[in-house]
């Protein structure tokens, strides 16, 4: 029962981390290697707003999310837009931006145990006899809401539909009058807000550390590859697979192997089914 409940919780946290990355990649084919950096920066922003400026927690969260979105949009508008379509430059530029943010944060001294966000609500509940603190329950709630919201947004909203059109065929979408740069900008802002949301939901469970930026990036990428790059449903499913695999290794082997599980998941996926579980429409493009 422990495994079942903590596996579900872990899976939702993975899904939250990954969904921003997969959104951006699916729509604009940009691998956003700055994803982890945005995750961490949002955590630090909330911390600074609450502890340094003395803002209300909720207000701090909202402001940070807005800033995360703006940062994402700025990264696209000023940097990535110029190298769009050049695969090598896209990867290097976004990776360099992420590194610059993370290492600058590390230099400013944001490391160690001192930076923690308070949980939204203290306390814990028992689910089927397993004690779970409320923050984890809330995180699962946020995860579920985000997934549901994205599904509704992309199916019943004009911008959402435009985004999906872009994801399927950028040229055709452009012919139908969808501004592809605008949509990519929106996707990038959205992806960054989702990264920030993941940070806000997950970080109260532990400390804010710069290393989390790399870990989140790797986990997000692992989830996306297993699910098929750019497939949202695949990403959610893959989050559950990796999430449970991680908890099972935790329980039976050792918790050091969490990252190894992610790496193995990628390697096995690439060997057996390179386009991931649900990456079928892109299969011909990526498989050599």
């Amino acid at each position, binding site marked *: 029962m422990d495994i079942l409940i903590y596996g579900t919780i872990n899976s939702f946290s993975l899904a939250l981390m990954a969904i921003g990355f997969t959104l951006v990649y699916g729509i604009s084919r940009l691998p956003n290697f700055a994803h982890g950096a945005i995750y961490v920066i949002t955590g630090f922003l909330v911390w600074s707003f609450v502890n340094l400026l003395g803002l209300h927690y909720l207000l701090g969260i909202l402001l940070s999310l807005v800033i995360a979105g703006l940062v994402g949009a700025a990264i696209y508008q000023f940097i990535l837009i110029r190298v769009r379509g050049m*695969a090598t430059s896209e*990867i*290097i530029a976004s*990776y*360099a931006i992420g590194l610059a943010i993370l290492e600058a944060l*590390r230099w400013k001294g944001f490391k160690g145990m001192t930076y923690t966000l308070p949980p939204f609500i203290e306390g814990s509940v028992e689910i089927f006899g397993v004690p779970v603190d409320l923050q984890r329950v809330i995180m699962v709630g946020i995860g579920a809401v985000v997934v549901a919201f994205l599904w509704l947004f992309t199916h019943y909203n004009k911008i959402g539909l435009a985004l999906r059109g872009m994801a399927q065929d950028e040229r055709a979408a452009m012919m139908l009058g969808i501004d592809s740069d605008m949509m990519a900008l929106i996707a990038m802002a959205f992806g960054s807000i989702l990264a920030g949301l993941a940070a806000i939901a997950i970080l109260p469970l532990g400390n804010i550390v710069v290393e989390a930026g790399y870990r989140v990036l790797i986990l997000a990428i692992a989830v996306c590859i297993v699910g098929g790059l750019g497939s949202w449903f695949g990403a959610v499913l893959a989050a559950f697979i990796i999430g449970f695999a991680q908890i099972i290794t935790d329980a039976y082997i050792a918790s050091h192997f969490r*990252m190894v599980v992610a*790496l193995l998941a990628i390697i096995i996926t690439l060997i057996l089914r390179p386009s991931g579980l649900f990456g079928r429409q892109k299969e011909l*493009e990526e498989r*050599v």
Partner: protein
Amino acid sequence: MKMEMGERRKERLDRGIKVRTEGIYAISSWEEMNYLLVPRLALILGMFALPLVMPAYWQRVISYVCIYALLTLGFDFLAHFVGLVSLGGALFVGVGGYLAAILNTSFGLPVVLTIPIATIAGAIICTLLLLPALRLRGVYFAIVTLMYPLVLLRIIEALNILGGTEGILGVASFPNKWVEQYLIIGIVIFSLFGLRRLVNQDIGLVFRGVKDNDQAVRASGLSITIYKSIAVFIASGLGCLGGAYLAHVYMWAGISQFALDFSILPIAATVIGGGGTLVGPVLGCFMLVPISELLRSVGTLRIAFYAIILTVFIVFRSEGIMVYAQRKYHQFERWVKV
């Protein structure tokens, strides 16, 4: 005024001497021969003169520069001739360094044996590790190379194997600093000219085919995966050689050899020096590594610093220094009326 601006454009033409030196006329006079030889000799002699003219503190840096130069050559080769972007130079350095250290401390092999064995065995290991990503196009190679150093570092730390966070101490050093420096300078020059030759051979053509149009390569009955593996083998061999050398220079192998510096600095050096020229990235190392030594006191900020330089260059000046210099050397420009 505005109209006049629109009526001119810059025209670039190859210099006569450039065209002449491409064929047999290259040996027709001293002028042509110098045109070809001077830049090459300047580089070679300049590198060999470095250990003699540098002050004592900077002597150490020469070896680091050359180690980074090897990594950078590998990166440039993979990225601009085969189309594989490797974000994990640290993987190659780490594997090479640990192999050399283990061979030296546990098996007692001398330096002359550890470095070649670590190079070949390390290249084989790295190629096998990266093999799953080689069958695919797109971002997978970048992702997998990004992950390996971070995960391997985590494993070594967590399991406390291979000396854990302490690293492997007591690795043998070189007999003296002249051997240390001249050997690596020789290796860099050899690799540089060797790679330049390689990319102009038939196999180099296939590599570029893999980058530009892999379906055409397949249609010619060649396996893309095999050619990519060969390329990765060459590049990771260079990286492992650098790593093994570093282990012997430091007399130590540890988790800092999986550090991010080894991944990001070669990329920055390549972009600044001029990707696809092979010489440019080496020169880029000669600029960036000393700066990085000066910045050692500011800690990880220097990684942020490279990353920012890198972003600025790739977005605004993506051709790099060497491409610019070659253009000025080989071509003249003039304004012509349209």
